[in-house]
């Protein structure tokens, strides 16, 4: 049997196991919207830990991370820096959102915001922003899967077929089991990607340089510019401190505002589970260390890859690793792609139905679940089409996505922490923030100190929201208390029982 056939065999075995886990997971939950979208709010710590970690670390971490370390050096460290800062607020927001979800039946982020600020326009606007941010991100995951597949099989499995195979599995298990499939497959995929990353991250430097320290000694002699902050830009020029620092802050601000992540607050069994998920996240975050080691190992590698993002598959193939290891690497990279892609696909369909359609059309539970399943296929198809045919069109969307998601932060924080905020204020702020984000993206030259457009737009968002809310009549105190004060602690009654 030829090398690529063995590799394909290993990967197919991995896909088979993932599919089986995904399909089996569905039997644990009720067939209802709360079951499909929030797993009946029954995820324990194991599922929550891996769903968080594996969702956050995407194909970008596995391919882009080494690519950044390889071509942009220490600039990559920004990716490691923002995660912890970004997830920290979830320790406080998550349990609060979860409590409100249990009380009012929320399963999405927009339902929480609109619960506090009732407005059909707001709900639809949030749904549009979410889906617009999801599709290009999902497209990236699919093309990551395609790249890995075609690289390690030396083109025997073409790009489109690789992406199609991996995502046929994802669509099947998301269709049948909803978020519980996302959760339980992520446990498997998360363990898998952690093991592969650590094993390769330590193996490659040792194999090529005799150790991690020896590797960095060599790089320090030849390319010291790659080892100190703020690193380089994509074109190889020094990056600016303003861009480096504000990229960390913008990413940290938007981090948990990604709706596919935030809505997992509603899947946790209880407060303690949610808190411990955040508490343990740094152990997952450290997973970037081996990922960067792999990228750095490529710096002095004799032959350059076709593009920086190919550095990992390139080295894997060139170092003559045993064929089984190459297969496992491929499966690990697919885990990273699929464990993010499934959450995105599931969230996009859920959000489109719950927040986009339901405000304008009355739907019963069965109809909602049916529509979600239809949308899983439709959105998956759209993202796949873009990945295969028209990747370039979505690049600008991808650039705007993070800044856009940052604009969700003021409404969410206001809903949970500021009693004086009003519906009109939040709407005005959100509209201004989105407009400002697009403006500073188009006119990047007007940004002071190259500060990230998302940060600038959030400042405008907050200013407009505050001013407009203060000018508006306040909301009823009983209503705001339920969100801001009462949700701050679990009701005593349940503690007694």
């Amino acid at each position: 049997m030829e090398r690529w056939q063995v590799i394909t065999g290993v990967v197919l075995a991995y896909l088979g196991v993932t599919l089986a886990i995904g399909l089996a997971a569905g039997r644990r939950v009720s067939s209802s919207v709360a079951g499909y979208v929030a797993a009946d709010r029954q995820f324990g710590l194991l599922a929550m830990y891996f769903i968080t970690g594996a969702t956050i670390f995407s194909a970008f971490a596995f391919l882009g991370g080494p690519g950044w370390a390889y071509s942009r050096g220490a600039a990559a460290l920004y990716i490691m820096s923002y995660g912890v800062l970004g997830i920290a607020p979830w320790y406080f927001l998550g349990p609060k959102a979860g409590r409100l979800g249990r009380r009012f039946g929320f399963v999405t982020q927009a339902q929480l915001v609109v619960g506090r600020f009732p407005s059909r326009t707001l709900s639809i606007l949030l749904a549009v922003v979410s889906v617009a941010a999801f599709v290009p991100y999902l497209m990236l995951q699919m093309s990551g899967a395609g790249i890995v597949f075609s690289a390690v099989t030396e083109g025997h499995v073409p790009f489109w077929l690789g992406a199609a195979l991996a995502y046929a599995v994802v669509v099947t298990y998301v269709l049948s089991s909803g978020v519980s499939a996302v959760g339980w497959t992520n446990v498997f995929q998360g363990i898998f990607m952690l093991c592969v990353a650590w094993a390769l991250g330590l193996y490659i430097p040792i194999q090529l340089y005799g150790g991690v320290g020896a590797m960095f000694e060599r790089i320090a002699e030849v390319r010291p510019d790659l080892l100190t902050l703020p690193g380089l830009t994509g074109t190889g020029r020094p990056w600016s401190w303003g861009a480096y620092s504000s990229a960390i802050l913008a990413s940290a601000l938007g981090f948990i505002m990604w709706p596919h992540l935030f809505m997992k607050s509603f899947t946790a069994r209880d407060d303690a589970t949610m808190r411990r998920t955040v508490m343990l996240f740094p152990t997952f975050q450290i997973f970037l260390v081996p990922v960067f080691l792999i990228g750095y190992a490529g710096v002095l590698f004799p032959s350059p890859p076709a593009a920086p993002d190919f550095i990992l598959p390139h080295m894997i193939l060139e170092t003559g690793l045993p064929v089984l290891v190459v297969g496992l690497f491929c499966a690990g990279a697919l885990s990273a792609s699929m464990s993010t892609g499934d959450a995105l696909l599931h969230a996009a369909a859920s959000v489109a139905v719950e927040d986009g359609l339901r405000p304008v059309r009355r739907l019963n539970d069965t109809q909602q679940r049916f529509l979600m399943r239809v949308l899983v296929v439709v959105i998956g198809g759209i993202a796949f089409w873009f990945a295969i045919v028209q990747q370039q069109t979505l690049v600008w969307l991808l650039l705007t996505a993070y800044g856009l998601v940052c604009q969700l932060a003021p409404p969410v924080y206001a809903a949970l922490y500021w009693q004086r905020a009003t519906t009109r204020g939040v709407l005005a702020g959100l509209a201004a923030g989105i407009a400002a984000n697009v403006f500073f993206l188009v006119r990047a030259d007007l940004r002071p100190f190259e500060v990230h457009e998302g940060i600038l737009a959030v400042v405008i968002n907050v200013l407009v929201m505050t001013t407009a809310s203060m000018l508006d009549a306040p909301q009823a105190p009983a209503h705001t208390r339920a969100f801001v004060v009462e949700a701050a602690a679990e009701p005593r009654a349940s503690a007694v029982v």
Partner: protein
Amino acid sequence: MNVRAARRIVFGLLGMYAVFLTWPGVVPVNRIRPLVFGLPFIMFWIVLWVLLVGAGFVLLNAAETRAESRAQTRAASGAASGAATGAQPRGKGGA
């Protein structure tokens, strides 16, 4: 440690994290040597802070869990004594 103190530690750590990992706080430690565990110093520095914040959250979660279980036992014993005092007047009334 009570919840408030633990919370203050976590906020303090997060604040320091933001300061020491971005410009200008990161500048003094932005160096390659000494290598620690084989990693360039700046990379080790970031890993160290990631773990420090994690440790802060471990403290805070422990404090909150303790406070919760204390509140629960208090509520349970409160309910029990409430039942006892509730029985008393009836007993008196019967006498």
